[in-house]
Every structure is written in C-alpha cells, then in structure tokens.
C-alpha cells in the first residue's frame, strides 16, 4: 500500500503552523514532540505506520473550527481520528499531515427519553453512549466489535455496523443529526432531533465518507428501549452449504432474529482452543439470537429450531440461562483474540448476497490452498457480511504481501458474485486500490465530485478511499503555494 510522499513545502510550514495552532488551543493540545507523535502513527491496521507532522487535540467545535481554518489557510492536510480503531487505515497519517483527534470531546450534551435521542460529542466511545442511557432502559443500537474503544466520530466516518444490525440497522440508520466543521472552518448543522433533515440528504452522504468531507464534532443519535430479554441458540452443521441454506430458510420464514453469526471449522477450532466455550467440533456453527419476553423468545426459538431440524443439525443448543448464553457468545466474541494468539492476521469484511455464501466459502478454501495461507471465517450471516481472517507471519519476508494478494482475491470474488469490497470497516487505504474493481471511472468521479464540493482543496484525509492515481490531480493543488 502506497502513501503519497510528503511535500517539502508543507513540512517547511511546521513551525509557523505550531505557532498559529498554539494561539488558538489550550496548552498541551498541540503535540509536536516526535516521541509523543508515535502514538498517532497508525490505527488498528498496524502494518502501516507513519508519524504525522503534528497532532492536535481540540476540546470544542470552536477549536476544531480554528484548527481546520488554520490548516486550510496553510494548505496542510488534516487526518481526523476518533479512537484509532480503524481496521482499514482510515486514521493513518502522512508525514506532512496534522492528526486531528477528537478524544477530548466526549461529553453527553442532551438526553431526551421522551423523544428517544441523545446528543453527544463525537469523541465519546460507542459503548459509553449506551452507558449514558441504560439506567433508563435505553441503548444505542450499532455495536461494532470494538465498541468498548471506538468513538462515535469513527463510527460515523465509517458507517459502522455490528452483530445486531440485521434488526437495528447500521450507523446511518441511527443518526439523526450532526454538527459538521468544513475544511475552511465553517460550522454547519445538519438534521437534529427531528427525522429526515431538510433538503438533499447531506447527512446520508456524510455518514460513511471516511472523514473526507468534514469533521463531525457533535451527533444526535437515536436511542431505543432495551428489549425485555434476549437468548441465543447454537446450531452445528456438517457443511457450510447446509448452514447457509438454514440461514436462508429462517429469513424466508418471516422470522427476523436480531443476529445470525456464522463460524467455519478453522474458526471454531481456534476459538475453542482459546476460549473453551464448549463448541462442538463441526464444519459450521450458527449462533442465532432473538429478543423479547420469555414467552416471545420461546415462540420464536421454537419456530427457528423447527426450521433448523429440517437441515439435520449435529447439535442444537438453546441457552437455558444467562450463563449458558454467555458461553454460546464467548467463543464468537473471542474469535479475533483467538486468531491473534495463533498468528498475525488480516481481517476483511467483503459482503455478499446471502445466497452466494456456499460458493464463496468453497472458493476461499481453494484460494487458501493456492496461497498456502490458512483462513478462518466468522461473519454476520443474516446480512452476508463476511469476515475472513487470513493468518500470516509478519516476521517472514513477503508474507504480508502474499496475504494482501490473497485478501484482494477474496474481495474481488465478493464483487464478482454481486457483493462489495467492504460492509462495515471502510475503504481507508486497505481497499483503496481495489475500488476500480467495484466501480467504473464515472462512478468514482461522481463520488469525488462530492468531495470537491465539501473540500475543494482535497485537504481532508486526502489519500484514502480513491486510488491514488485517480485522485492525484485533485490532490496536487497547493493553494497556499499559489
């Protein structure tokens, strides 16, 4: 993965930039010490690292506006950063850029149970949004695996999903309004506590724009009443095809579980060895969870188990109590940790039509043999959002590149069967150079035209999402030098 070379004229502006930023920000909010800057050299895509020229940690929308205005005037790129948990390199800086971290902005600004929304500063972590409202029986629905650490700012930038979005949708479906700071420092309010912002759906295009259109400093989020209860059931099958058919039949039957998770044999074995969740040794496992009162759950699970029985499961295990429910989820929730213990891994999130599941899993198995790299699959089956984990050895020369080529082949396969490169992690730098496989030049041009409107100088997170050669002409302009 390439990043553009830093521009000497930008690096030369560093001391002037520090001076100006220090005038606007409180002491300690401008970081220029090389040792301290190392904390910002990568996100969760740790294979790629580059220290930024500076990092700033503003505490308010007004300070964010000052930072952006100054950087805009000096034509210095800005890379917004939530909590730095992006798996796609969304917060990877370039050496001539300023990291704008929103971590200090984590207040809850307004909580309204009657109208079911909460307004927060976007540095607040995903889980602590729920934390702020759960005493009153509410929760914030999108639940990415990193929810303990990841910030709402990053969730909005990447339009994050989670295991429960089959029922509750992803970030964009739960976002009512934002305060957005444009690259030139102007502050705009879009949407609010009411539904459907006026005019063109700017909110819809800002969510998922990977920090390239503006910096979201505050967000109004929809909160939901917590269900009375939830219960998972574990289903074991002796082939991926049969498990896939079972998923399809459950959906066809008109029952919509809150989550359907799928694990294949390599993943089951690794998780079992790591977490001892008591999973059966089989080809494919499903975890299906439903919500409601006890009686409602009984009714739904009875119907779901009846469907599963038609597919000759090796085992059906309904959680009898909270402890058993916890153990059913334990293995699934420790999948990433389990993989990390075995080896380095790369996690992809291509999404496919549910009907293509067996074919795609078979092809991934074949590719795994061709490349000589192991792969484990764990994913949100209800919505076709795959998560192949490719294992490699970062200390072995050439292994990372081999793994990346394997990953690229899997993603191209996802596109071939009617799916997409990324379902919830974002493009970042990771899938940037594959965009041409999903989109024709005119399709990419239309997306870049949106950035042209919001950020004409292409200073916000400029080297992401679009293949470098495609965005090169736009990034080449240096207003300050002209």
């Amino acid at each position, binding site marked *: 993965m390439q990043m553009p070379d830093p521009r000497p004229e930008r690096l030369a502006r560093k001391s002037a930039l520090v001076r100006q930023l220090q005038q606007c920000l409180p002491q300690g909010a401008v970081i220029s010490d090389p040792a301290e800057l190392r904390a910002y050299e990568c996100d969760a895509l740790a294979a790629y690292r580059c220290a930024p020229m500076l990092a700033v940690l503003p505490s308010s929308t007004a300070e964010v506006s000052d930072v952006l205005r100054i950087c805009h005037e000096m034509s210095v790129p800005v890379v917004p950063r939530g909590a730095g948990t992006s798996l796609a390199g969304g917060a990877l800086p370039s050496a001539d850029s300023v990291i704008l971290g929103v971590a200090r902005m984590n207040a809850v600004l307004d909580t309204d149970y009657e109208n079911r929304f909460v307004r927060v500063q976007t540095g607040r972590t995903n889980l602590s949004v729920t934390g702020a409202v759960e005493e009153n029986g509410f929760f914030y629905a999108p639940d990415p695996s990193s929810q303990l650490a990841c910030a709402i700012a990053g969730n909005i930038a990447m339009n994050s999903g989670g295991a429960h979005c089959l029922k509750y949708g992803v970030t964009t479906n739960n976002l009512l309004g934002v305060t957005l700071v444009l690259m030139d420092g102007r502050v705009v309010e879009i949407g609010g506590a009411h539904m459907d912002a*006026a005019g063109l759906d700017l909110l819809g295009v800002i969510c998922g724009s990977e920090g390239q259109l503006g910096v979201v400093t505050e967000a109004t989020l929809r909160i939901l009443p917590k269900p009375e209860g939830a219960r998972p059931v574990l289903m074991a099958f002796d082939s991926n095809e049969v498990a896939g058919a079972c998923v399809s039949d459950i959906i066809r039957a008109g029952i919509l579980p809150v989550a359907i998770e799928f694990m294949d044999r390599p993943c089951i074995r690794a998780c079992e060895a790591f977490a001892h969740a008591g999973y059966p040794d089989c080809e494919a496992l499903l975890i299906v969870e439903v919500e409601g009162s006890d009686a409602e759950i009984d009714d739904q699970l009875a119907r779901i188990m009846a469907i599963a029985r038609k597919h000759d499961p090796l085992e059906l295990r309904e959680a009898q109590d909270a402890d058993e429910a916890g153990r059913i989820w334990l293995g699934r929730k420790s999948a990433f940790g389990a993989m990390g213990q075995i080896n380095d891994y790369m996690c992809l999130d291509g999404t496919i039509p549910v009907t293509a599941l067996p074919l795609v899993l078979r092809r991934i198995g074949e590719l795994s043999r061709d490349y000589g790299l192991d792969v484990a699959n764990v994913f949100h089956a209800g919505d076709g959002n795959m998560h192949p984990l490719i294992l490699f050895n970062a200390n072995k020369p050439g292994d990372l590149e081999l793994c990346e080529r394997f990953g690229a082949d899997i993603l191209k396969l996802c596109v071939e069967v009617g799916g997409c490169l990324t379902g919830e992690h974002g493009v970042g730098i990771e899938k940037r150079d594959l965009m041409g496989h999903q989109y024709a030049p005119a399709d990419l041009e239309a997306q870049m035209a949106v950035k042209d409107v919001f950020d004409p100088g292409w200073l916000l997170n400029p080297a992401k999402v679009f293949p470098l050669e495609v965005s090169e002409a736009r990034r080449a302009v240096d207003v300050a030098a002209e």
Partner: protein
Amino acid sequence: MRPTSEAELAEMIAGADGPLRICGGGTRAVGCPVAGDILETGGLSGISLYEPGALTMVAEAGTPLADVEAALAAEGQRLAFEPGDWRGLLGTEGVPTLGGVVAANVSGSRRVVAGAARDFMLGVRFVDGIGQIVKNGGRVMKNVTGYDLVKLLSGSWGTLGVISEVSFKVMPVPEMETTLVCDGLDAKSGVRSLCAALGTPFEVTGAAHLDAGAAGGTSRTLVRIEGLAASVSYRAERLQSGVLAGFEAREGAASAALWRELRDVTPFAGREGAVWRVSVKPSDGPVLTAGLAERGVTHTAIYDWGGGLVWLLMPEAGDSGAGDAGAGALRQQVAALGGHATLFRGSQDLRRTVPVFEPQPAPLAALQAGLRAKFDPRGILNPGLMG
C-alpha cells in the same frame, strides 16, 4: 420523451437542449412547478432480480409500485417503509412508480421505527445531467464501499440525476397486526401517549394522532403492534395495562385500514386548502399546533411518527389574508422549534411564490447548490423544483 432503456435515457439527457421535467408516473406533483420537456421513466420497467431468502429486490425505476408490491406479497414480503399513494391527496392521476418513491423518499408511518425509504435502498443506477450513467451501492445489506450516493439520490426529487434502477431491502409481512385505539384525547395527551408507547420495549411500529377535524368529528390516537401472533397479543396487553390504559384493540384488516388512510393522508384528500408536511421532534408536534392556534391560524392536524410528522391542512389564503397558506407563521414556529416544513399541496401560483421546501441556512444551501452544479452542470434536471 419516454426512453425504454437506460442507454436511451442517457442519450436523451445528453442530447437535451433545455430544462427537463422528470416524471415517474406523475403522481407526486410536489415542489415549485418546473417548466420543461417532460421526461417519463415509465418505459424503464421490470423486476430484474428478486431473492426472497436474501430479502433483496432489484427493479427498474419506472416499474409500477403495484407490480413491486404484488411480487413481494406473493412471497409474504413487503416494503417496510410503507410508501403512500398520494393521488387522492394531490388530485393526480397516473401510476406510482418505484423511482418516484425513491426520488421523493416516500415513507409512511413505520418510518418512526423501521426507517425511511432511503434506509432501505441498497443500490442505485442513475443518469446525471450530462448523460453519464453512474452506479452506487449494490445489492447487499451492508456496504460502505465509497460514498453513499444512494442516500443522496433518495429524496433528491430528480434534481441530481434520473434514477434508472434501484436495489432495495424488503421485509417479511408479520403474522399479525393490532392497533390500539383511543378516541377523544387532545393532541397534547395523545402525543404524550404515543411517546410513552414508543419508549416501551414492546416494539410499536406506528404511532399517530388525528385531530377531530381529520378523524370525522372525534380525535383519535392510534398505536400499532406487529409480529408473531402470540407476541402481538402479549405486547398489546402489556401496553393496555400500562401506558395505553383505556385504548381498545382493532385487529387484522380493521387495523390495516387505519394505517392505509394515514399512509395516503386520506383525511385531507379532496378537501379544500393547502397541505403542509412538517418534521419536528415528536413532543414538539402539539407545541407547533398550539403556537399556530395562538396566532389564530386555522388548521387541522394529523400527527404521525409519534408526533414528529405533522400534516397540516390550512387555508391557502393564510394568515390575515397574506395568501401564503400560513407560511410566515408556520415557518417561524418551525425555526424556533427545530425542524422543517414543506408546502406539500398548494396551487401552482402558491408554489411559485412560497418556497415549497424549507429554506436552508446559507452554508448548507451553498453545499446543496454545489452538488447540483456538479451532478447537473447545465441545470436541466427539474430546475428549481427544490427551490
């Protein structure tokens, strides 16, 4: 102009030498009247893919909505965002199309929990103002590959591009529906009941209140629950013994009929006056109308989305005969509360003089104008429709 293929649509737009008025079935005559050659999408019709097990459908934009709904019904599925038929309300004729639903982001009562039309759109193909074919999104449930132009196109009323094909998520028809009804509540206590019901874990999928003038003489408050039969009965009972004490249950077809009327805004069909569609936060619905009453603005209101969507029937003559259908008083109220008001129905003259869509603050208006200039540099797609 009536293209029969996407390629032909692209040629026609590329070759156009003046403004175009984009029409699906012509049933959603909303917005500032547009002068221009009519470009109809009805010739782009047909369902190209339907996978019930994946809850997805792909169809051309001109496909009649009725065809889409019939195909879904045959598999026990439906459009969960409940798009309305506005022919009665707007006094239009023609055949509502899928593309029109998307372009106008038509969403009914279930929007309050399930989302708007835009939330169910998975992918779109459209032709921009210079005749280029663009695609965005795809046909899978989760997709963050690049910017979400699908949402941008939804509700853009044909001003950014002419939609040629959409793929979207569909949902199963629930086994049963029940509506809990209470007559005679005033708007404030009605909406308070709606908010309370929406705040329970009992998965309310519709929450509306109709003024006496919209409900045939006695005001009416409605709360819908849908799902598996046993579950619906359980939830109805919990609500009736809790926050909806005194509400009575209507089941099945009787329940469905109540929501069809709301979806299509039937109570205002065929009645004289301008119709406004206002979005505010739910508890502000009755605050808004109380403010209008204080100013002596005559109105009849339907509150949907738990109180947050207010349909208002008001005399075209408006406040003290200003001839603005009450725009001045209404927009002042809305600005104070936060939200937006659309002059949904009004004479052509009225829609030429009163901004139909809520005027935007300058920086937002500039962003929207900037997007239009990029997608339609010649300004020929429904120019001026959105103001």
